[in-house]
């Protein structure tokens, strides 16, 4: 579709059609707003952040599945009864800011019908869940008999009874991607619904892990609820809620100040391409991103992106797309390593940010389209937004990132019939940054999980790791080089099934910035180097590996920033010394000549002049 044929909504209509994670301004309050002195404000802000942090710490430590306790693929926080996020744990960005959508989802069933002691379980992606494997546990909070808010957490279940262990991309609809739980009261007024509990666990492959994880999530929410009621007991509802509202306003003000510094206008990223939908291999799908700065509001318009797919490769709008855009804007304008330190991620951050994706596109699918596998395309959004702003704020953006994901669910059925399922999120890498190289082999953008220790994986599953290192190839060249992806090779000691989700970025590589080199795609190769070598697409559903097979996983490498011939020669020499590039690469890409470990200044000067005068390819 040529760009000229995209029909964009006019700005006014776009404002009306776009959505935000923030709750609309509330009209009536169940408390009396009061002035809160600056000290009490700090105290309550600190207590809320501490509560969210405690919730997450409990969850990491107590959880069962490796995806929750090693990868830490979870989120936790406290919301008021209007679904305004008051605080959230500093865990995985994808989970940050999805809680309000979960609460709105359960409100559709239970608004006004909460009891003390309720525990509500939810994973329905058309009612706010991030995607079906991300269970949410929500506990309504009561103070003096009055419903004042919710403690909630989300966590990725290792298996939810999909067509294949872990997950499946190639499924016809939502119902094939796992069991749905739509705002089910697991506990009603403190009473466990045992048949429901049994039913949930009897329909998954990993009942022990899921049971342990859900128990941990319940404990996490109860802790959060206790903390909030303690705070109210101490300071009173008026002071606590007034302070919380001030904190929301504070975060909002800080973000709006930064947005207002940007010139009004429309900023477009180059069209991006997704490899395929996990079924129709070889058919790439276009995505379009334009960002509009309008005063102190930001609108992200995804019009023109590919229609929803026939597989599970779609993105839940409320639970995934909105949190991603919130993340992208906040990270770009309020970087925690700089001015953004200490600004809480709450409802206030969401207020200036709106997103529009037309119904029926990949970023706003219509029920009952499957939408389990959403990370590869969702993680392109922050990268697209960075590209859109590259010309405007070059010292805040990055060159093209891996901006994908490489998640693999490994599984097998031993003699005793009890499934093992392990989920591993493979690392990406960052593009070069203004005055900094890209980060190597690390989770990128919306992903921020941890790897599983090899010594943990091999002890708990019939796997053998043969390699886990940086990739054997030069990083994408640039004044600030791109980050290198990781290489990992597994050998399977027993027949093993894998399902994967991701995008190798082979057709649309991470985009070099300001003369920097493009990044490199990733790959999955079975039995590399043997006669039966076979490359896999990034998305396979239920692929079978035999005993003795190997799987080599190569992570995507981020792009370079700036012309390589401008790179600090000492940094080039360090890359050479550290085996990231060779002498030929140092000379040909960077124009740096190193002899006997020392930079040859004269030869380097000459070589660099040649490089700079050479016609651009």
């Amino acid at each position, binding site marked *: 579709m040529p760009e000229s044929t995209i029909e964009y909504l006019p700005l006014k209509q776009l404002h009306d059609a776009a959505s935000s994670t923030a709750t609309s301004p509330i009209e009536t309050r169940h408390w009396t707003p009061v002035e809160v002195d600056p000290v009490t404000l700090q105290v309550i802000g600190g207590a809320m952040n501490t509560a969210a942090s405690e919730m997450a710490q409990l969850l990491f430590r107590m959880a069962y599945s490796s995806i929750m306790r090693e990868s830490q693929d979870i989120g936790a926080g406290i919301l008021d009864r209007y679904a305004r996020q008051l605080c959230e744990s500093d865990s995985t960005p994808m989970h940050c800011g999805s809680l309000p959508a979960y609460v709105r989802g359960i409100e559709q069933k239970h608004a006004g019908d909460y009891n003390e002691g309720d525990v509500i379980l939810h994973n329905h992606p058309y009612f706010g869940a991030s995607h079906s494997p991300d269970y949410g546990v929500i506990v309504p909070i009561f103070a003096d008999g009055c419903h004042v808010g919710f403690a909630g957490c989300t966590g990725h279940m290792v298996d939810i009874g999909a067509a294949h262990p872990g997950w499946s991309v190639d499924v016809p609809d939502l119902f094939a991607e796992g069991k749905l739980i739509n705002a089910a009261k697991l506990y009603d007024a403190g009473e466990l619904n045992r048949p429901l509990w049994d039913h949930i666990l009897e329909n998954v492959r990993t009942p022990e892990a899921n049971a342990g994880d859900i128990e941990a999530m319940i404990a996490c929410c109860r802790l959060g609820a206790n903390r909030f009621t303690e705070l109210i007991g101490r300071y009173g509802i008026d002071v606590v809620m007034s302070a919380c509202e001030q904190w929301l306003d504070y975060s909002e003000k800080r973000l709006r100040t930064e947005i207002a510094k940007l010139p009004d206008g429309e900023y477009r990223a180059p069209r991006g391409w997704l490899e395929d939908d996990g079924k129709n291999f070889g058919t790439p799908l276009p995505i379009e991103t334009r960002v509009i700065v309008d005063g102190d509001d930001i609108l992200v318009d995804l019009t023109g992106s590919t229609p929803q797919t026939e597989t599970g490769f779609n993105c839940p709008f409320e639970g995934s797309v909105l949190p991603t855009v919130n993340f992208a804007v906040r990270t770009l304008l309020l*970087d925690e390593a700089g001015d953004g330190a200490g600004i809480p991620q709450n409802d206030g951050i969401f207020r200036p940010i709106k997103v529009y994706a037309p119904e029926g596109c990949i970023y706003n699918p219509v029920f009952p389209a499957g939408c389990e596998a959403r990370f590869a395309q969702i993680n392109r959004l922050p990268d697209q937004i960075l590209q859109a702003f590259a010309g405007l704020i070059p010292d805040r953006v*990055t060159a093209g990132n891996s901006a994908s994901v490489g998640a693999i669910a490994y599984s097998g059925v031993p003699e005793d019939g009890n499934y093992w399922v392990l989920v591993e999120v493979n690392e990406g890498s960052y593009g070069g940054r203004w005055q900094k190289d890209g980060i190597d082999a690390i989770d990128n953008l919306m992903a921020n*999980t941890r790897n599983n220790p090899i010594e943990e994986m091999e002890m708990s599953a019939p796997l053998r790791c043969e390699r886990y290192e940086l990739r054997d190839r030069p990083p994408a060249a640039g004044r600030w080089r791109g980050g290198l992806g990781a290489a990992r090779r597994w050998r399977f000691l027993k027949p093993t099934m894998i399902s994967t989700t991701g995008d190798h970025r082979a057709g649309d590589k991470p985009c070099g910035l300001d003369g920097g080199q493009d990044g490199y795609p990733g790959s999955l190769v079975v039995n590399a180097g043997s006669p039966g070598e076979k490359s896999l697409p990034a998305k396979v559903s239920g692929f079978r590996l035999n005993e003795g097979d190997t799987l080599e996983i190569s992570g995507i490498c981020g792009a370079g920033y700036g012309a390589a011939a401008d790179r600090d020669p000492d940094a080039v020499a360090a890359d050479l010394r550290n085996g990231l590039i060779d002498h030929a690469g140092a000379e040909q890409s960077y124009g740096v000549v190193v002899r006997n470990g020392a930079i040859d200044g004269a030869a380097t000067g000459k070589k660099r002049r040649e490089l700079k005068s050479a016609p651009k390819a």
Partner: protein
Amino acid sequence: MWVNQYPILQDIERLYHLGIDIGGTFTDFVFRNEATGEEVIHKLPSTRDDPSRAGLAGIQHLCSQAGISVDQISRVLHGTTVATNIMLERNGAKVGLITTEGFRDILHIARKKRPLNFSNYQDIPWQSSPLVERHLRLTVPERIVPPDGAVEVALDEKAVRKALSELAEQKVDAVAVCFLFSFLNPEHELAVRRIAAEVLPDTFVTCSHEVTPLHREYERFSTTALNAYVGPATARYLQRFDDAIAEGGVGGGLRLMTSAGGLVSSKAAKQKPVSLLFSGPVGALIKGMDIGRAAGKPDVITLDVGGTSADIGVAPNGRLMHRHILDTRIGDYDAMMPMVDLTTIGAGGGSIASVDEAGMFTVGPRSAGASPGPACFGFGGTEATVTDALVATGWYRTETFARSGNEIDRKLAGQAILQNVAEPLGISLPEAALGIYQIASRNMADAIRLGSITKGYDTRDFSLIAFGGAGASFTAEIARELSIAQVIVPPHPGVGAAAGLLATDIRYEQMSSLWNDLAVLPSTELREKAASLAEQASAELSEDGFAAADTEIVYRLDCRYVGQGYELTIDVPGNFDADDWRDTVAENFHAAHERQYLRRFSDKQIQVINIRVIGIGHVPIPQSLPTLASGSDKPVAEQTCMFASDEGWGSFPTPFYDRHSLKPGTVIEGPVILEQIDTTTIVPPGFTMLVDELGNVVIKSGKPDA
């Protein structure tokens, strides 16, 4: 028969024990006559180029004061920040690493999680500032595999020789040997050590299975690399100290406080300097436990506040708690070592108060440090610090500071607070000063909350014990915030860490991996491992001169429910001889899980991951002597101070006392301020203080008992 290399308990001639805590600014000494319980304290400026110099000078000074010869000292107990400072200043060794082929970048990839979520521009410390550079990380063919440590790929010794020669050429100062699964079978790491002794005879070599024989390769490798990084310099320092005290004729040997809260011989410390990373702050917590025990209140929280940071320790029921494995690190570098559960936060006298562009009032973590320092010191600082607030309220008196040679200017403090806080917020100076104080106090209270209440402990049962130059200025306020029953300010809070050394047992911890289900773990295997570890621990204690009667062996297991990833360390009785040992282990684990996570799963299988055997050499702790009051017990001054009140703030006529003039039994209702050379104790309105028989000041909320 043992020849006691370090006679400790048997030798009655040597009655004197000495604790030395060497910090960045001061070197503190506590010297005790074990027969009489008499204690002498001393403070000297630290000698940073060679910290042992101030150490030795202090020893000689104290001995001449006491009229004894230095060889009458039986034990020199030492807490040191030398390893910590190497990490802070990043001036450690050039380290080479030998690791399994295919795994060169474990230290570079780490757990592949970014420290910050909302940041594209953060630095990743282990990549931007690595402990071992990539060209010094060399791989050799070898592979040990689970579950039983079988050799799948034999070690290529030729490749090892080649790699070590390369490191020798690169002139590394230390070599870390890190192979996968070495905790199941150390033979390959030991072979590298053997070859290294030939190829690099004078180089510090450390093997991962010796540093920490536990699973999780990144954490183990990182700990080993840290050991290599701080190793050579720390070992040299300890050797110099050893030599200096030997030359000075000091009797006995040097013992070091570890991060785990026990003392080890300097020989053991030289092999595992990574165990000294938190050697400094542990002493104060142990002293706090000692004070709590003596006062009949064994649940203690200690707060040690200095210029730039505050160390918080929690010891429920008088027991040291150790950190969860998720939290054992120094800065951003993982160190999988037993560590006392101490939290350090960036809150101290130098913490800066500010109001940002959106009107938010914060205190810290930025600090004015020693230079320019707080505005009131007049060294050119213009920002408002916590110390300025303490001066502006009237609590810190110019005259008192002048006596210890420090000039403070109340006007400069007020100006800084007015400009940076009061005016931007549109509030008065007293409100702003008290606000800074309250926010700083509550930052510390939040850290205490995370370290205690999170773990299931109710702070209302605890005593809060003040240490450091500034702890006693905050403790009452924090006690109010956390509903802590009482505050204790010991007679000499400024030398808490050094005093703690004298109250610390000798402690050797040995561990080994088990990795089996509790239901099927063979009793014989467990008993054999336990016995062999216990034997090692006993041998170390007996080498230290402990009679068997003065030692104790503690057994612990790291357990989890099958499927969980993190273990809880539980105490288990004895040596697993009883028939029902499995039931006991199971019940202890269920109970620990319930306390920490609010739930128990009685029908779930338990997995036993590691066994830890701790050999403890008990040091007799004589009852502290009551501190004798001296001088007049009348106020040394009375002036108007500001305190928070229900109406925001108020002016209160406040008496100031010389703390050491107050006799046991003295009761004074707040507001009152106690001055002494090393700290100022603030007793706000609404609190009452009393001097107990041991000379501690005990502060409780409310009016004096009728």
